């Protein structure tokens, strides 16, 4: 099936278990086991979780630094003007909406449905174009600069860290999307699509507390 992405992969029947030289019960034959698996069964899931734990910790610490600086400041936001709500809120909506194609991409991968995987990955890519474009507008309406005060530095750091994740996640997904069209493919690429979708959820949902801090931490 490899190199022929049009053909739906993995339709061969599992080979019959072999019992060579196992008459005396010394050997445990594992030939019948599947060659890939989804979710917590897959090492990819654990690797992705590890990344999320690290990056989630970075976000959490950066938010703590924001409030630590706020608690030591008499006046917040320092420049007097909180970031404008419009583009940040629009982007929150776009990111939440991208969970829909992401969900379908993940489900299609777990059903080994190559056509639908391709379709939903492409839809996800369109969403990423949208949120990256709106992100530029967000930076323009922050009403503070990174070098004007510690408040500005914390806001730019938070938004910069999250934007880095948007860019890298978009690039990862793009490479994977191209591979799903061109091949060479094998079953474990569906696991990659599924874990890529988990990571996408992480990047999108970690935006919600960051959005709250950047846009409402300077208001409430």
């Amino acid at each position: 099936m490899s190199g022929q992405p049009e053909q739906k992969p993995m339709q061969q029947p599992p080979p019959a278990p072999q019992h060579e030289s196992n008459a005396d019960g010394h050997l445990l034959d594992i030939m019948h086991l599947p060659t890939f698996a989804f979710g917590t069964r897959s090492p990819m899931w654990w690797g992705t979780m590890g990344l999320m734990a690290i990056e989630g910790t970075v976000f959490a610490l950066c938010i703590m630094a924001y409030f630590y600086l706020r608690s030591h400041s008499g006046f917040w936001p320092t420049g007097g003007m909180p970031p404008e709500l419009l583009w940040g809120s629009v982007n929150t909506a776009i990111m939440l909406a991208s969970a829909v194609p992401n969900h379908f991409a993940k489900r299609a991968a777990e059903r080994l449905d190559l056509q639908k995987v391709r379709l939903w990955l492409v839809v996800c890519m369109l969403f990423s174009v949208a949120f990256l474009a709106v992100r530029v507008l967000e930076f323009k309406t922050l009403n503070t600069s990174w070098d004007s005060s510690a408040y500005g530095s914390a806001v730019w750091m938070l938004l910069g860290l999250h934007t880095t994740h948007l860019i890298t996640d978009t690039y990862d997904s793009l490479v994977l999307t191209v591979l799903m069209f061109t091949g060479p493919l094998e079953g474990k690429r569906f696991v990659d699509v599924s874990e890529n979708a988990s990571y996408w959820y992480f990047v999108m949902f970690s935006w919600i507390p960051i959005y709250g801090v950047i846009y409402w931490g300077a208001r409430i």
Partner: protein
Amino acid sequence: MSIADSMQPRLSPEDAGKLEQTWRDPPGIIGWFSAINHKTISIRFMVTTFGFFILGGLLALAIRLQLAFPGARLVNADLFNQLFTMHGSTMMFLFAVPVMQAIAMYLVPLMIGARSVAFPRMNAFAYWIFLLGGLMLYIAFFVGVGPDAGWFAYVPLSSLQYSPGKRIDIWAQMITFTELASLMEAIVLITTILKMRAPGMTLNRMPLFVWAILATSFMVLFAMPAVMLASTALITDRLVDTQFYNPDRGGDALLWQHLFWFFGHPEVYLIFIPPLGVISSVIATFSRRPIVGYPAMVLAVIATAFLAFGLWVHHMFATNLPELGKTFFTAASLMIAIPTAIQIFCWIATLWSGRLDLRTPLLFVLAFFVILVLGGLTGLMLASVSLDTQLHDTYFVVAHLHYVLMGGAVFPLFGAFYYWFPKFTGRMLGERLGRWNFWLFFIGFNLTFFPMHVLGLWGMPRRVYSYPKEMGWGSLNFTATVGAIMIAVSVLLFIVNVVRSRRHGEAAGNDPWGAGTLEWGTASPPPAGNFEMVPVVHARDPLWAPKSLPTHVTGLSNEYREILVTSVADAELDHRLWLPASSIWPFLAAVATTVLFVGSIFTPWAVVWAAAPVAAATTFWFWPKKDIIEKRTGSEVNP
């Protein structure tokens, strides 16, 4: 063992040859840079960290020579600042934490009966990143821009205003390199341990060393991001005028201390917990019995890992934090003595009820008890706010931290080298030189660091490059320097021992110590795929247990890198998985990343233009090869 050995099922010589061919690293120079076998990478990693240990030690020797006499003029104040900063940074970031991960990378797969680590290419990438980051630091030092603000680089001293030039930027990027490597290694280790244990090795049968590495790796995930964030904020303050640490613009200097020690205190335990696993391995083998109280030991390690995150403020008792907060951190600092004590009691019970075999590895482990207990007791003293305020930034703290880190980590580490060297090389280290190595180290260590307690109580501040004769600190400082020279001679003997034994040492065989864990059940050094056949585990000490059936797994391919994945808790059969083949791309990706990190010290735009080669290299790294996929999809089985 010999009877059991002869009954082991084995591969035919032809299949064993194929397996070796499949898992071994490619030949040639390009092959050398493409190697991803975990044992190859681990040996390079260990040699590299040991090289940094030697460099850090030589810097320490220079510090001791300068302080041997009052008013000495061997080095000037500026060089002295660089010496102690480089010494501390080297030992903490380039030696103590990574050496533990390096050893784990070799031993964990062997101890759990796996053919490889999970994500072997990421493992190789992490090594190259580590090496290149360390080289950057030392190149900077040798061209005269070594960092000079101490290994914890407090602001405002490390701010642009008080530290102009590139020295601190180099330091901050060294942090980025080493922590990135460390975080990746943690992910590799956690996944390997949880998903790749041999069938039957339930969590309840996992060797204590592997438990220690698992706990440490989880700590890395939550501790290291703090220092990466702190150093990133420092370097942006210095390079693009962010204001995180500048009080004039709403910043705060203590923010640095909080972020740094939120990493820095757990870091002590990142250094200290893996050796606890070493000690459990060595004590079990040389007492000739399993460790007493296995469940208590496991729980104590996990408790230590949790409590380690509640201690960071005790490094900040000399700041103006609320008194109530300090009381809490005093209590937490005292509490962590409980799980440590539990482990020490279990080891003493094991030694007490075992039949001791006093070889060099055990000597180094026994020294741990003496030195760590002393270091722990001074730790309890420093956990008291009132005493700490008096002793802060004196040589008492220097003595304390060296007793904890050398006693808690370096002595067991040398024990580990003597213990596992036969597995790494197939030959024993010389026992006679080993004893000289040990006794010179032990006596030299105490001669160096015990007087520092007294010097600290007398008021000698740390990091002074000289002191006047009238202070009366001369004789104790001279004693300390004599001790440091003894340590240097002892380490030299160790190197001689390694170089000699590697060629002419006594042949070791599979299991020279009669140990019980799986790594001793395969050849020394192990074949490229670790085991001819993956073992099935029925007990905590599989080699000491009576034989049970089945003994081995069959059905994994010898033609390509296929491994067995098992369930997290009970290590039940789950699926087969194909690991990637050797590749040069992890190395090239590391070079590209280095260009990005080093470039960003000189221009922020490097983050933009150097991202392109990083993206290209990681894409080539990921992109699958057609021929190997064709080879293995024939045996694909859907879940």
